[in-house]
């Protein structure tokens, strides 16, 4: 478990942090060298270059390794394409997503409307773009907030241990005990959903996974020599958590963050499909699907399949990136 953590930070090989570098070194069996107490800046610079030199030749940069992972790159390509479609698309392809037009309802795909129109006469292609904007914005924000908070919570809990750890983890257990969708629906009925509110609420329900994950990492990292070294050198707990535990768990954290985005897109699409997402005139992929299913029996396929497909493609792409990141990290560990 510990091994998957070490050196998994993107770009770490170029500039190792002093504490991490010390961790890689075997303890001196003879005890002749003094414990690494309070290194001068010069000394730690020497250590850094000594550490970094042999590795630079042997190991490629993280980006170079990731590029060789075909699924990961494909996922990244799709995400960039979807993002460009949603955010740049409206600049090229103009459509009115505000005014309903009864004259244009349920038009089949054809000239002027490549993907047809929906029951309110909105152009489907343009609507996919606008709906994607909120989906991507919210899910990326949620992944960021939830990951940062969860990682910090888990690192503090795992590093501190004892009663504080027990209390912090029981809090996680309690919130995790209620499946997110039930809490989300309840909160959506009590408060009127807005973009910031959705980000806050989804984050409040998504930080639990990273918290547990990082706590596990912290539990094993806290017993490592480089943590002892920092403590012996007089480093405070906040420094150990912030500068040593968290950076060392960054690999696990970033893989998980990618999956968080995928999960957030799904849960957001589910919420808006059920009718508890952003209220109109906001556009969402789930909402489009929900409206389109009304016409499933009428054969208006263009109102259902494009929205369903784009959700699926985006989620698959984020999962691909996550898998690719994880595989790259694992492969780099084997190389060492």
């Amino acid at each position, binding site marked *: 478990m510990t091994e998957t953590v070490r050196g998994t930070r993107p770009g770490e090989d170029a500039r190792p942090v002093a504490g991490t570098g010390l961790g890689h070194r075997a303890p001196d069996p003879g005890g002749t060298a003094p414990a690494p107490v309070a290194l001068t800046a010069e000394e730690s610079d020497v250590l850094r270059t000594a550490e970094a030199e042999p590795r630079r030749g042997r190991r490629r940069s993280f980006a170079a390794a990731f590029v060789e992972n075909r699924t990961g790159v494909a996922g990244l390509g799709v995400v960039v394409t979807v993002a460009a479609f949603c955010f740049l698309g409206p600049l090229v392809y103009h459509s009115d997503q505000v005014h309903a037009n009864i004259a244009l309802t349920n038009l089949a795909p054809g000239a002027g409307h490549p993907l047809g129109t929906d029951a309110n006469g909105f152009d489907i292609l343009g609507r996919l773009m606008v709906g994607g904007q909120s989906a991507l914005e919210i899910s990326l924000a949620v992944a960021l907030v939830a990951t940062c908070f969860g990682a910090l919570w888990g690192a503090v809990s795992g590093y501190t241990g004892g009663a504080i750890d027990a209390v912090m983890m029981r809090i996680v*257990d*309690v919130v995790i005990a*209620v499946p997110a*969708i039930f809490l989300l629906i*309840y909160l959506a009925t009590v408060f009127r959903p807005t973009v910031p509110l959705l980000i806050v609420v989804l984050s409040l329900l998504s930080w639990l996974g990273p918290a547990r994950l990082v706590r596990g990492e912290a539990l094993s990292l806290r017993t490592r020599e480089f943590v002892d070294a920092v403590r012996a050198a007089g480093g405070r707990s906040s420094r150990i958590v912030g500068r040593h535990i968290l950076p060392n768990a960054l690999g696990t954290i970033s893989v998980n963050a990618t999956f968080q985005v995928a999960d957030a897109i799904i849960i957001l699409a589910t919420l808006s499909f059920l009718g*508890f997402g952003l209220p109109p005139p906001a556009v969402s992929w789930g909402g489009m699907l929900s409206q389109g299913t009304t016409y*499933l029996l009428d054969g208006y396929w263009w109102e259902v399949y494009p929205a*369903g497909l784009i959700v699926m493609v985006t*989620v698959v792409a984020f999962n691909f990136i996550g898998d690719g990141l994880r595989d790259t990290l694992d492969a780099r560990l084997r190389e060492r």
Partner: protein
Amino acid sequence: MIGYTLRRLVQAAVVLLGLTVLVFALEHMIPGNLARAILGPRAGPAEIAAFDRLNGLERPVVSQYLTFLSHVLHGNLGYSYRLNQSVDSLVAHELPNDLILVGIALLLALAISIPLGVAQAVRRNRVLDHVATGVSFLLYSMPSYWLGLLLIAGLAIGVHVFPPEAPQAVSPAGVLADPRALVLPVVTLTLVNVALFARYMRSAAVDTLAQDYVRLARAKGLPARMVLWRHVLGNSLVPVVTLLGLSVPAVLTTGLVVEYVFNFPGLGLTYYNAAVNADYPVELGITVIVGIATVLGSLLADLAYAVLDPRVRYD
């Protein structure tokens, strides 16, 4: 083992206590006042005062919480003013239907994913493995309602094989009496779970296959099938048992969506309807039940793990 079980039981009890605090807090999060939310805009000050007195809302928060806790412990989950029915009778009425839907789907999912996962592990990186991994990846990446809609579009509207709606009977016997209508919701829930379980089963079997005792069994000349049945399957099932316990929230989430898509008369649909009608007591009561199910699931998973794998000892 006894010590571990006791500690784990205490931990579960603490989490359940925390759950009641959370639900109590959710109830008090309703903006404005509860009386207004339930009695409606036309209620006068006298009615609101009477409601507050009747429900103890004028008492201190801690005292209110203790009352709430005592109610929950006695199986009183609140009262739905919309349905004019107690929430616990509602739950007692709907829960058997859910157990049918979820039970059948879980059994099917295990029956498919266990052999599938082992087969994938044995034929790693071959066609079957790639296809199965790809399909579960797709299933895993789509919202469950989208899968349900695809099945409806294909098998209920495209070809009229199955009805698009779940059985509409109110009793469990009635639900079982209409097996054709039960097919699509069960298949949706099964496929989603297969996608989840097969991944774990595959990696568990891959781990087991690499163990020395498997190599030994092969080396001493046991037939391949015997090795698989006696040594690989049993040992790979241990993590799956844990997964089963931990998958309760995922199953309940999918259950809610599937019940909505297929209009299945269960707790999930009741929760949805309660949410649409702002029927807070029903929402919160079901939340308590769902939370209890999740906590019990993870408790059983941990205990089963300790029983199945004697090496696991937490001291």
